[in-house]
């Protein structure tokens, strides 16, 4: 390797482009240092450091949103910086910020090490940010594994709870399986692309752009098709699409509620970020294979998610399975984006859907965290009976969040669904659209069932008595409590306002 080549490679290492990720990693390390350096009674300040640090980073990323490096590849083609990547950065920062907040509330009630939780959340979210900007299978796999390994720990974080440990084990096994599939697919693609007997063979078959050129020159190659399907399978594990959703109910139930939120929102969004990147760059020449595959997956995911959620009584399982149906709606948007003419608009619709899904989901998970009983995994619908009388504010936030997830106007979720539906109609996906519409009607039943329990159900005396002592937060100072309530109020307000007035944000998402 010549000196010039090294020189060129070094030049493409624009560290300035990944300052957010690097500083997130540094912040994570700082937390560990602080834990050692600070006296024990000052430890409760560390979560605050994590939260304030992330907030500062979020502001920084937003301020430099239109950075000069947009549209360029850095680190020798490992990363590509785009508008979509910037959006996902903000998305993951927001998600990890909210998870940290929920984690602070949830961990305050338990005798568990706290700092590691925040540390891992930060590392995972930095990895997700890199993942969303990856332009190379090596980067993709390394980032994805960082995320997955982080989640192995987070899912079984409540180590005293057998359900949490069980969830961790299940996530470990299925996660390893999905990583295996993904890796196998990558290797196949790399191998095929490197075959010198084929037209346009390339040594850098891991690079999305080069792979795209190669695939365009070799349509209908069997091994390449197999590789693509395997990679898509690996990604579908992350987004929880049918039939790769088997891990979801148990893992969502067993994982600590903040981690469930992280899985449900950020991990799913990360899956969609890579899915969108892959189908629009590397796999674009194989649209003839990708579109039918994703169409079938979307249909099955919509049907399965909604029907399975109907019978749930545990709210964490319910929200997990309803999340499967949301994956179906998002897949519908992804399929729509693969049809000529509506690509940009459909990607905008998917991103808007993700954004409002984040707002609504965290509103719901926030309420769940506040009301969680000592055994985190056993949150039943019955616990919400009469919530509107006991805690009107939380009941209001819950109703707004669930209403938005169900896609009821005037909440933001409706606009998200509408945008996806319009794009699907534009792309002439009538059958999928019909299934999605029926899915919405079915989903009303379980979302509204939850709201009904919270608002119309009469709470019995014993439940009221059991609920009262929890509200004080076990003698904790109610400062964190107030902050959480404030944030929940913000999420609900944003969900409401985005439902009827999207303003510049709407223009940003849809008019591209």
């Amino acid at each position, binding site marked *: 390797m010549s000196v010039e080549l090294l020189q060129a490679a070094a030049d493409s290492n624009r560290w300035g482009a990944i300052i957010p990720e690097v500083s997130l990693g540094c912040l994570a390390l700082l937390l560990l240092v602080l834990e050692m350096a600070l006296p024990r009674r000052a430890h409760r300040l560390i979560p605050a450091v994590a939260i304030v640090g992330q907030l500062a980073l979020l502001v920084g990323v937003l301020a430099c949103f239109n950075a000069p490096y947009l549209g360029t590849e850095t680190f020798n083609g490992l990363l590509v910086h785009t508008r979509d990547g910037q959006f996902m950065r903000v998305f993951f920062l927001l998600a990890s910020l909210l998870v940290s907040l929920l984690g602070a509330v949830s961990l305050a009630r338990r005798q568990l090490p706290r700092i590691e939780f925040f540390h891992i959340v930060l590392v995972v979210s930095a990895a997700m940010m890199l993942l969303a900007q990856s332009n190379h299978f090596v980067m993709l796999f390394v980032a994805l594994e960082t995320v997955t390994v982080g989640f192995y720990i987070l899912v079984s974080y409540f180590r005293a709870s057998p359900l949490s440990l069980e969830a961790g084990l299940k996530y470990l096994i299925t996660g390893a399986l999905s990583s295996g599939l993904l890796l196998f697919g990558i290797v196949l693609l790399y191998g095929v692309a490197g075959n010198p007997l084929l037209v346009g063979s390339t040594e850098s078959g891991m690079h999305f752009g080069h792979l795209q050129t190669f695939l365009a020159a070799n349509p209908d190659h069997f091994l390449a098709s197999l590789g693509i399907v395997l990679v898509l399978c690996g990604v579908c594990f992350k987004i929880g699409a049918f039939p790769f959703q088997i891990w979801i109910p148990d893992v969502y139930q067993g994982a600590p509620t903040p981690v469930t939120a992280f899985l449900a929102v950020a991990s799913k969004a990360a899956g969609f970020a890579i899915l969108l990147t892959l189908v629009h760059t590397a796999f674009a020449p194989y649209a003839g294979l990708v579109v039918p595959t994703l169409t079938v997956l979307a249909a099955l995911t919509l049907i399965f998610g909604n029907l399975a959620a109907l019978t749930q009584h545990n709210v964490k399982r319910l929200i997990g399975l309803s999340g499967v149906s949301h994956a179906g709606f998002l897949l519908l948007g992804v399929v729509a984006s693969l049809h000529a003419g509506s690509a940009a608009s459909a990607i905008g619709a998917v991103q808007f859907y993700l954004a409002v899904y984040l707002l609504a989901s965290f509103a719901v998970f926030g309420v769940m965290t506040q009301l969680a009983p000592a055994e985190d995994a056993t949150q039943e619908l019955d616990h919400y009976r009469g919530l509107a009388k006991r805690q009107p504010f939380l009941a209001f936030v819950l109703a707004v969040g669930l209403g938005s997830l169900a896609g009821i106007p005037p909440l933001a979720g*409706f606009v998200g669904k509408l945008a996806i539906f319009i794009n699907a109609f534009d792309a002439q996906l009538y059958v999928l*659209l019909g299934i999605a519409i029926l899915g919405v009607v079915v989903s009303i039943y379980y979302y509204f069932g939850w709201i009904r329990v919270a608002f119309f159900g009469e709470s019995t005396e014993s439940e009221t008595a059991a609920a009262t002592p929890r509200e004080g937060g076990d003698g904790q100072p109610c400062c964190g409590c107030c902050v959480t309530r404030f944030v929940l109020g913000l999420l609900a307000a944003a969900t409401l306002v985005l439902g009827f007035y999207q303003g510049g944000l*709407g223009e940003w998402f849809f008019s591209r």
Partner: protein
Amino acid sequence: MSELPFDPLLVAILSPLCAAVLILLAPQRFSAPLAWLGFGLPALLALHTWYHFPSGLGGDYAFASEYGTGLSRFGIALHLGLNGISMPLFALAGIVGLAAGLYALQSGAERLRLYLALLLVMQGGLMGVFASVDVFFFYFFHELALIPTFIMVGIWGGRDRHYAAMKLTIYLTLGAMLTLVGLIAVYVQSGAQSFDLIALRAALTAQPLAETVQHYAFGLLLFGFGILVSLWPLHTWAPLGYGAAPSSAAMLHAGVLKKFGLYGLVQIALPLMPFGAAKWVGLLALLAALGNVLVIGFVTMAQRDLKQMVGYSSVMHMGYAFLGLACLSTVGAGGVVLLMVAHGLSVALMFLLATSVHQRTQTFDMEQMGGLAQRAPVLAAFFVAATMAGIGLPGFANFWGELSIFVALWSFSPVFTVVAVAGIILSAIYGLRAAARVFFGSPTAEFARVAEAQAPADLRWAERVPALLLLAALLFIGFWPKSISEPVNQALSGSWAAAVDAGAPAAAIPFSAPAPVAVDAAAPGARAAAFTAVD
């Protein structure tokens, strides 16, 4: 036109919504004034737009204004305006809203603040539905008004409220979703890249949709709207829901919100997709005549529960509205708009009075009532008047609506006309029988016991004012139908008639009538004039 320094339509929509938020935030003692403001201002503005509604508009919109909300990519903007079809309904929403609000204020419901706030949200949605020119916001405001209904049924409802709330939610969501798909279909297929009704009309006049597209899109809209308006056999949510709903919510929903579907069909579906309409009207007329009018007419007669009976009667009257639509003529559609307003006022009055009766007898079971007129003569008088209005006695607004529908229906199909007129006899039977059972005759043993425990008082002023408001509106339109029929005629003749004409099979329906609803009650022989206009 308006000389107000602000946009009357926007203020009419926002003032109830703001009042709702303020009621929840402010202390209890501010609730009543805020509610007065939230219900009164839209009513005043509605009357203002009615009074100042310009003549000679044709199908154009008055009081128009437009505000961007960030969805310009899809051609969505908050475009407000009133034309001859929407103005009467906007006025209806204002009046019924005020009556429902006043009735709620005196009801002394548990958690009154939340109750008022939800009603106000509903009111804001209702004003928005009829003021929107943009189809997206038309749908959006409907849903905004619908959500509080579910909650109110669930919290303050009567018997079976949980079941009723769930059933209502699922049925109405299904209807709304079908409507939404139909609207998206029109949006995408028209190629107008806009949800603005004016732009859609322009695009579709220049380049009508293919007939197959019209066929399925109109079908989606017809059954979507049909569920929302309780088209037989998709009506089962209505009596159950109204039976369980608290009075003010039932007044607003049955009186105003339900008209959304009919309004959508008249304003959007018929002129945009005349060919599709022509294909479906046969089935629509059959379902409406046999199902809504005859079957439900007999079902209504069999009801013992007063509130259920009112609910079923409202389903039955929707049959007349569907029949009027099925005529695909200016007369028929004009009659539908008149009937929508009249029925909205009269059914709201009936729900109000039924609840007042319930407060005095502690039951809705008509078998256990009787002789209430001796204790509450004013209530009895109101009830008899409302019943007469429901039957369609001349002098009440309903008469003109039903009359012009029958006139139009005769040229569509004499058989259906006979069925429809027979339905009037049914409604006279159950209406008068209910009045007789509740108010006249000797008190039953059960009622005597209730009356002994707590002597039933006559209608209080707090109840009389909203009832009077509704009755006055009914009589006003009944004696001066021109106040509504003129703008309606303007909007329905001209481009509307031309568009609908284009799709109608010429043999079935004569379209020679230029301004048939322009009947003036003050002039003698109005009835004959209406008939000659059609001939």
